[in-house]
């Protein structure tokens, strides 16, 4: 159940099937609808036409049957009017004893069969059973007045009456017309004064005539006409008709109409119309399936049309959906590969539509991500390396420091006061330098560390080196990158003070200005030449955080050039560390004048919390700045 529901949720289908489904819906359902509607309408129209056509045929057949019947009726009137016949009816056989009379009468009757070849025979029967005919005679001696047709004629009181097939009558035709081959018509001749029946004229009409009128009418493929009289007796039916046990009771009492019936497993349509003159009903019979030839044709065209629409529709929807969904699924599969970690993949873009744009964006995004990833990796590595370097720089001091402790302890034991102090300062320096491997230390510690360093150097250089350290209040707690001052102070001593004549002064200041911490190392040493200063500045400026992170050629080149600029390695190292940690807005600025000294300023951000490794945040701020 749930499954089904899920299946019916269009949103769960793949785009391709969704598209195909909708395209098919739009193309095929209407065409099928039109097809069905048209087929249905055409069916109706054809059926109506077939019915009206059949009715017309039946109508014309009825008209010609009426004409024949009318002719026969007229013959019966002529016969009744003939004086010879009248006298025969009045007087019986005696009237025609005379040969001439008989001859004339037979000539007269012959004239009718001459004019109307459809007449098979005429017989005139007197009320007493005497009869006269050219071609018909009684089979037995029984009086013809007892015949049923005679009785019917008498009952009809001078009205012309069609009997139908004269079954089992006592009259035969000399030319051997079987009862099934003729239709009998009777009319009583009445005395106009007494209304007594004087006799009956019986005329046999050849069925052939009716058959020829009816037989060649074809309804549909194999439909036919038949003629039934009012008693349901079949006057005419094609000999080869297989109507089986069709029930024609429905015909009685109706003057016209249609009905259908199943005979021998075949649905038949009966259309019938009764002629009031002959009292015969002409019935058109055709198989319902027959009338469908035109319908079949129409249906064929419709089916062909719908099929073609289906094929085109399916092909079109398939390709359309394919063209839309394929790039999407391609994109999806690329995405999956990327998910699996393959970052080198690129979508081939040869389209210009939205899909192409999407692909291009995807490619751009991927390369962006790749770059970022490698940048991060690079940064991490550089940090590691820097740390490693400082670690290595610490390991020796660590051992040294322990040794120094021992020396201090030995010196104190021996009472060498100066040496003890010296060693203590050295070990403090080392301890601060090590600072348990932390990256950040408080500014106070850093200053303390520089103080120890300067003290040791002073011990070495005696009065050639003087130093002063200023630190604004309330910035002692600020965390700073450790060991950023020492290389610069070292530079100031070795390249500034050491190179000058006479004593020199190294000033270290820490102050807060412009929202950042400024650490200044000033010496009044030798200074440097203009070009060297420019070169140094360029070198330091070239150290950009991303460049460093990406390990770009620029940075390495700068590193290489530093080999030529001895003693600026310390500067470069500090610059690199600061920029790696905080971005390009921080770092070292140089001012120097030959024979006057050098001022190195470190711009360091103010770190509020010591515990947090805030450099990520600062990276962000640097980026947004």
């Amino acid at each position: 159940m749930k499954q089904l529901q899920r299946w019916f949720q269009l949103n769960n289908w793949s785009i391709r099937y969704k598209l195909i489904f909708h395209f098919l819906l739009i193309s095929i359902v209407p065409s099928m609808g039109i097809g069905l509607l048209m087929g249905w309408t055409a069916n109706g129209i054809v059926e109506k036409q077939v019915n009206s056509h059949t009715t017309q045929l039946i109508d014309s057949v009825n008209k010609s049957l009426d004409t024949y019947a009318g002719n026969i009726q007229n013959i019966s009137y002529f016969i009744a009017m003939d004086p010879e016949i009248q006298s025969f009816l009045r007087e019986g056989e005696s009237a025609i004893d005379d040969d001439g009379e008989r001859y004339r009468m037979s000539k007269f009757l012959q004239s009718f069969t001459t004019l109307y070849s459809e007449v098979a025979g005429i017989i005139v029967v007197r009320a007493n059973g005497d009869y006269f005919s050219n071609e018909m005679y009684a089979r037995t001696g029984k009086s013809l007045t007892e015949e049923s047709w005679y009785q019917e004629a008498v009952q009809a009181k001078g009205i012309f009456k069609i009997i139908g097939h004269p079954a089992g009558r006592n009259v035969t035709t000399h030319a051997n017309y079987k009862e099934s081959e003729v239709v009998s018509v009777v009319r009583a001749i009445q005395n106009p004064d007494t209304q007594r029946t004087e006799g009956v004229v019986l005329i046999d009409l050849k069925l052939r005539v009716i058959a020829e009128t009816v037989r060649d009418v074809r309804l549909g493929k194999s439909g036919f006409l038949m003629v039934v009289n009012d008693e349901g007796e079949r006057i005419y039916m094609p000999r080869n008709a297989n109507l089986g046990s069709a029930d024609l009771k429905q015909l009685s009492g109706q003057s016209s109409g249609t009905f259908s019936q199943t005979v021998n497993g075949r649905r038949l349509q009966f259309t019938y119309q009764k002629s009031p003159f002959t009292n015969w009903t002409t019935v058109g019979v055709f198989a319902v399936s027959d009338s469908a030839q035109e319908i079949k044709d129409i249906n064929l065209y419709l089916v062909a049309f719908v099929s073609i629409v289906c094929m085109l529709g399916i092909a079109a929807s398939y390709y359309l959906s394919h063209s839309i969904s394929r790039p999407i699924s391609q994109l999806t599969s690329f995405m999956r590969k990327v998910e699996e970690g393959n970052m080198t993949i690129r979508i081939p873009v040869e389209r210009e539509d939205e899909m192409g744009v999407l692909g291009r964006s995807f490619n751009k995004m991927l390369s962006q991500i790749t770059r970022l990833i490698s940048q991060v990796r690079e940064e991490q590595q550089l940090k590691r390396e820097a740390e490693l370097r400082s670690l290595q720089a610490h390991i020796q001091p660590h051992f040294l420091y322990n040794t120094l402790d021992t020396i201090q302890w030995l010196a104190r034991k021996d009472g060498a006061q100066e040496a003890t102090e010296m060693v203590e300062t050295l070990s403090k320096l080392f301890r601060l330098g090590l600072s348990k491997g932390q990256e950040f230390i408080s500014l106070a510690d850093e200053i303390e560390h520089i103080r120890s360093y300067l003290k040791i150097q002073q011990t070495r250089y005696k009065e050639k080196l003087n130093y002063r350290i200023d630190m604004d209040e309330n910035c002692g707690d600020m965390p700073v990158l450790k060991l950023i001052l020492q290389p610069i102070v070292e530079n100031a001593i070795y390249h500034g003070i050491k190179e000058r004549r006479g004593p020199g002064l190294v000033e270290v200041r820490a102050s807060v200005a412009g929202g950042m911490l400024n650490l200044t190392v000033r010496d009044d040493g030798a200074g440097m030449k203009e070009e060297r200063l420019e070169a140094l500045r360029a070198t330091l400026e070239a150290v950009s955080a991303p460049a460093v992170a990406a390990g770009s050629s620029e940075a390495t080149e700068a590193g290489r050039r530093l080999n030529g600029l001895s003693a600026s390695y310390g500067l470069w190292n500090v610059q690199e560390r600061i920029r790696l940690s905080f971005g390009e807005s921080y770092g070292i600025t140089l001012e120097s004048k030959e024979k006057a000294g050098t001022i190195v300023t470190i711009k360091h951000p103010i770190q509020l919390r010591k515990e947090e490794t805030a450099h990520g945040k600062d990276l962000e701020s640097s980026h947004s700045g």
Partner: protein
Amino acid sequence: MKKLLMVYIVLIGTLMVYLYMAFVRGDDSGLLNESEGLHGSMDQKYVMVNFLTGIDYWKNGLKGFEDAAEALGVSVEYRGSTQYDVQEEVMVLEQVIARNPAGIAVSAINSEALNAAINKAVDAGIPVVMFDSDAPDSKAYSFLGTDNYKAGVTAAHKMAELTGGIGKIGIITHPNQLNLQERTRGFEETIRASYPDLKLAGVEDGKGDQLVSEQKAVQLLARNPDLKGIFVTEANGGVGAGNAILRGAKLNQVRVISFDTDKGTLDMVKSGTIAATIAQGTWNMGYWSLMQLFHLRNDIVEPKANWRGSNISPVPVYVDTGVTVVTKADVDHYYAK
């Protein structure tokens, strides 16, 4: 792509199945059982043309014609001159030809008058056969009828048998008609050749009419009171001659041999007025006329690959429908049942 191909195959398959269902497997067993073999159509109309159309003699021939039409499923029409009138028959035949029927069976009122019309019809491609009374010089394909000379011979032998071969006999005929001439000739020649004791008292013209023939018979009897027999070459005259001997009360003296089997003649044979009558195969004339016409019309006959243009006739040029002698003993067979 594979799926699409599958869908297409299914679609096309469905279409094919539909077409197959609609047209190949269409139920051909109609309401009408298809006729096997020879089968025409109702719009083929064959016409029988003769003269004195009303007389009973033609009725059996027409019945045969109709029965054949029924068997083949074609339609027929019966036309001709109502009177004994050469011009009328020619005119009727011309009218019939003008309506371009499928075929015409003609009984010629005389052996010459219809030739032009018949030839015209044959040239126009309308098959024509002659029945009962021939027009030998016409282009009609065939003649179906009694060998009248032989019928006359048969009648002569019967007459000899009835009269014992001795005495005077008369003939009532209708000299303008070829068939009656032949009967008369066969009768006369056989009498002369085989029965020297039989004398021909005279040949009378009964005009094919009952009353005229009666008068002629009366005249014959008046001229030859010892007349032993009368041979009448056609039916109406037979009844007339019968009436004449009844009136003259010569029933036991004069043996009448008549022709044909219409009701009046049969009644007289039954009552003994007429001693014998010669029955012709009239039904067969009509029936086989139509059969021949049908075969000619539908090109069913092919005696030789290229019989057209040669003198080869596609149908039998002469069909003898035969005669039988009807006497009181077997007259009942000839009544309609």
